[in-house]
C-alpha cells in the first residue's frame, strides 16, 4: 500500500487521539494508588504534616503486622478532598478507605455509600470508645465508620492583652469555667481596654465550622433535632437564648464584624494577627501557634451555662460500600483505633483520642504538653445526644440553613424569632428531602 501524506496524517491523528484523551483523564490509567490487588487497600485523606506522618507510621505498622497486605496512602489537599471523593463515589471507583469529618459522615452513611461495619467488627468493639464518639459514627443504629480522633473548642488567649485589661482570674479547671455572664463581663472588660480596631475575641464558626455554634445551644441544654433526628427542635427557649447571646457579640462589638459565619476570614487568623485577644479554637492549632506566634498565650475552658458543652470535632475513618476487600478494610479500621496507634497519632498531631482508656488516662501532646488536660477536659463535656444529632444524614443541608440564617442574624439585623423560624423551617425541609 502506498503511504502518501494524507494517509500518514490520518493514521497519525487516529494514533494520537487515545493519547490526547488519556492525557485529559478520559481513558483509564493503569498506574497510581488506585490500582489494587486483593490485599491492597487504597486510603484517601488530607492532613497536616504531623497527621500524615502519623498515618504513615500507622500504615507501616499495619503492613508489618499483616504480612502481604498493603495500604496505598493517597494524600490530597483538603480543598479537593470531598469534590474528588464525591466524584469517585458517583463514578463507582471510590477508595477503599477515606477520612471524613463527623459533621459530613451522616451524608455518606445515610445515602448508602459506606460499609456497614456491624458484621465485620469483633464483639465488644464499641466498648473501646467513649459513648459520644461511638454515637458520632452511627446511622440507624449501625456503625458505618470508626471514630479515629476528635478535637474540640477551647479559648486560646493572649496573656499580655488579658493582663492589660485586668483579666487575671482565668479558669484552670472545668468546673470553674466562666459562666456566660462572667465571659461577657471579661469580654466587656477587654472591649474597654482595647482600641476600636481590636476585639475581645473571635469564634471559629466560619464556613462548615458553623456546627460549632451548636455548642452555645447545647450549653443551655437545647437541641436542634428532636430525638427522632428528623423533627426540628431549635425553636425553643434554649434556641432563643443561644441566638440572642451570640447575636450580642456583634451588636456589642465584642467580635470583629468580618468574623461572621459566612466570612472567608478565619477566627484563628484574627488571633494570630492580634486583632483579637481571645480565640475559640481547637488543639490542631497548637503546633502552628507554638512555632509562629511571638506572644505568650494560654488556653482555658469554653464558657458554660446550664452545663458545659463543646463540639465533637475531628474525623472518622470509613470504608466504602463498594470496597473489594471489606474484611481487610474492617481489619485496618480496627488496627487504626488500637490504643498504641491512636495514642501515637494524637500525641504527634495534637488531637484528642476517642478511646475510653486514653480519654481517662490522658495523653500528652508533643508540643505544649501542659495544655493537654484543658482539651481533654473540654472534650469530656460532649454528650452522645449532642454528637448523635450532628451525625444526621441531612447535616450538609442543615449546615447551609444555619449559615444563611445566622449570617442574617449576626450581621443582617434579622431578629431572633425570624432566625429561629428560618432555621426550624430549613431543618424540616432538609430532613424531609
Amino acid at each position: 500500500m502506498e503511504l502518501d501524506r494524507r494517509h500518514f496524517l490520518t493514521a497519525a491523528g487516529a494514533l494520537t487521539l487515545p493519547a490526547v484523551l488519556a492525557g485529559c483523564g478520559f481513558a483509564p490509567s493503569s498506574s497510581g494508588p488506585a490500582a489494587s490487588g486483593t490485599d491492597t487497600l487504597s486510603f484517601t485523606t488530607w492532613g497536616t504534616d504531623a497527621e500524615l506522618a502519623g498515618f504513615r507510621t500507622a500504615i507501616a505498622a499495619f503492613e508489618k503486622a499483616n504480612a502481604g497486605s498493603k495500604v496505598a496512602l493517597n494524600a490530597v489537599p483538603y480543598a479537593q478532598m470531598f469534590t474528588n471523593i464525591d466524584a469517585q463515589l458517583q463514578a463507582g471507583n471510590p477508595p477503599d478507605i477515606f477520612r471524613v469529618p463527623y459533621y459530613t459522615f451522616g451524608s455518606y452513611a445515610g445515602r448508602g455509600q459506606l460499609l456497614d461495619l456491624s458484621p465485620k467488627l469483633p464483639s465488644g468493639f464499641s466498648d473501646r470508645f467513649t459513648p459520644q464518639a461511638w454515637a458520632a459514627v452511627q446511622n440507624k443504629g449501625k456503625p458505618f465508620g470508626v471514630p479515629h480522633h476528635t478535637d474540640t473548642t477551647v479559648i486560646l488567649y493572649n496573656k499580655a492583652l488579658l493582663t492589660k485589661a485586668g483579666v487575671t482570674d482565668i479558669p484552670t479547671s472545668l468546673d470553674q469555667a466562666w459562666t456566660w455572664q462572667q465571659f461577657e463581663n471579661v469580654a466587656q472588660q477587654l472591649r474597654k481596654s482595647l482600641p476600636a480596631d481590636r476585639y475581645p475575641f473571635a469564634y471559629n464558626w466560619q464556613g462548615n465550622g458553623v456546627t460549632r455554634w451548636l455548642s452555645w445551644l447545647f450549653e443551655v441544654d437545647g437541641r436542634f433535632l428532636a430525638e427522632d433526628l428528623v423533627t426540628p427542635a431549635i425553636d425553643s427557649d434554649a434556641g432563643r437564648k443561644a441566638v440572642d447571646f451570640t447575636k450580642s457579640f456583634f451588636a456589642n462589638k465584642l467580635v470583629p464584624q468580618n468574623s461572621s459565619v459566612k466570612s472567608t476570614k478565619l477566627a484563628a487568623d484574627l488571633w494570630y494577627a492580634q486583632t483579637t485577644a481571645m480565640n475559640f479554637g481547637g488543639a490542631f492549632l497548637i503546633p502552628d501557634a507554638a512555632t509562629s506566634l511571638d506572644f505568650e498565650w494560654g488556653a482555658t475552658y469554653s464558657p458554660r451555662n446550664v452545663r458545659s458543652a463543646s463540639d465533637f470535632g475531628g474525623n472518622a475513618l470509613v470504608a466504602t460500600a463498594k470496597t473489594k476487600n471489606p474484611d481487610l478494610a474492617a481489619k485496618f479500621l480496627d488496627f487504626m483505633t488500637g490504643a498504641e496507634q491512636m495514642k501515637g497519632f494524637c500525641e504527634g498531631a495534637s488531637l484528642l483520642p476517642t478511646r475510653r482508656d486514653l480519654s481517662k488516662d490522658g495523653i500528652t501532646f508533643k508540643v505544649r504538653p501542659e495544655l493537654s488536660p484543658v482539651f481533654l477536659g473540654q472534650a469530656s463535656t460532649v454528650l452522645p445526644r449532642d454528637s448523635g444529632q450532628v451525625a444526621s444524614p441531612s447535616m450538609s443541608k442543615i449546615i447551609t440553613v444555619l449559615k444563611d440564617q445566622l449570617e442574617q442574624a449576626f450581621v443582617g439585623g434579622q431578629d431572633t424569632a425570624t432566625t429561629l423560624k428560618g432555621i426550624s423551617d430549613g431543618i424540616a425541609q432538609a430532613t424531609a428531602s
Partner: protein
Amino acid sequence: MTSSRARLSRRESLTGYAFVAPNLVLLTVFVLVPLVWAVVISFQQTNGFGAGRFIGLDNYARLATDPVFWRSTANTVLFTVIVTPVSMALGLGIAVLLNSVLPARGVFRSIMIVPMAISGVATALIGVLVFDQDTGILDKLLRSIGLPAVNWQSGGTAAFASVLLVTLWWRVGFNMLIYLAGLQAINLELYEAARLDGASGWQRFRYLTVPLVGPSSFFLLILNVVYSFQVFDIVFVMTGGGPENATSVLVTYAYDNGFVTGDQGYAAAIGMFLLALTLLFTLIRWRTSRTRDLVE
C-alpha cells in the same frame, strides 16, 4: 474516470473528517455530553449520589421563589454592567497613552500585562492581602492619611466594590493589549489629515480612534460579558459570596448548591438559567452585529 473522481472526493472527505475528528470528539465529550446531562439533571431531585428522581420543572419553579438566586442574578448583572464598560474604557485609555511616544513605554506595557499571567485564585489572594479590613494594606494607608478605614469584608457595598476593583486590576491589562493591537493597525495618515483639518485631540480620539478600534471593542465586549457572567474564582476566594450574599453571583451560588449542599439538580437548573442568559446576550449581539454590517 467519474468513479475515480468520486473515490478521490470521498477520500478527501474522509481525510477532512479525520482532521476534525479529535476536536469533534473533545467537543462532544467535554461540552455537548455534559451540557445535555446537565439539562437532564436539572429536572431531577438529587442527593449527591446515585440516580436522581425526576421532578419535572420543580427546580425551575424553586428558582422563581428563591431570594438568594435573584440576589445572585442581580449581582451578576450589576458586575457585568460595571466591569465590561469600565475595563474597556480604562483599557482603551491606557492603550492610547502607551501607543504614544512615552518614555519607557515598554516597561509600562509589561506592568499592565503582568496581571494576565497570574491565575484568578492567586489574583484573589493578592486582593485579600490588600482589602483585609484588619491587616490589609489599603485600610492602613487610608488610616495613615487620616481617612476612615473601610469595612471591605463586612460591609456589603464595600465588599462588592473590592471584588470589582480586583477584577478590573486583572482585566484592564488584557483590554489594553487588544486595543493596543487595534491602534497599531490604524493608518497614521488619518490622524495627520484630521490635524490639518483642525481637529482637536479629543475630536481625533472621539471621531477617529473610537470608531477605528470598533472591531477590537466588539471582540472585547463579547469576552468581557461572557467572563463576567462566569465570574467565580475572585468572588469565591475574596468574599465567598458574603457578607449576607452581597457578592454572591450565579456561579458561586450554583457551586454552593452543587458541591456544598449536594443539591446538584438545583445547581444544574441555575446553570441552565445562566446558559439562557448567555444565549440571550449572544442573540442580541448577533442581531446588532448584522445591523452594523448593513450600515457599514
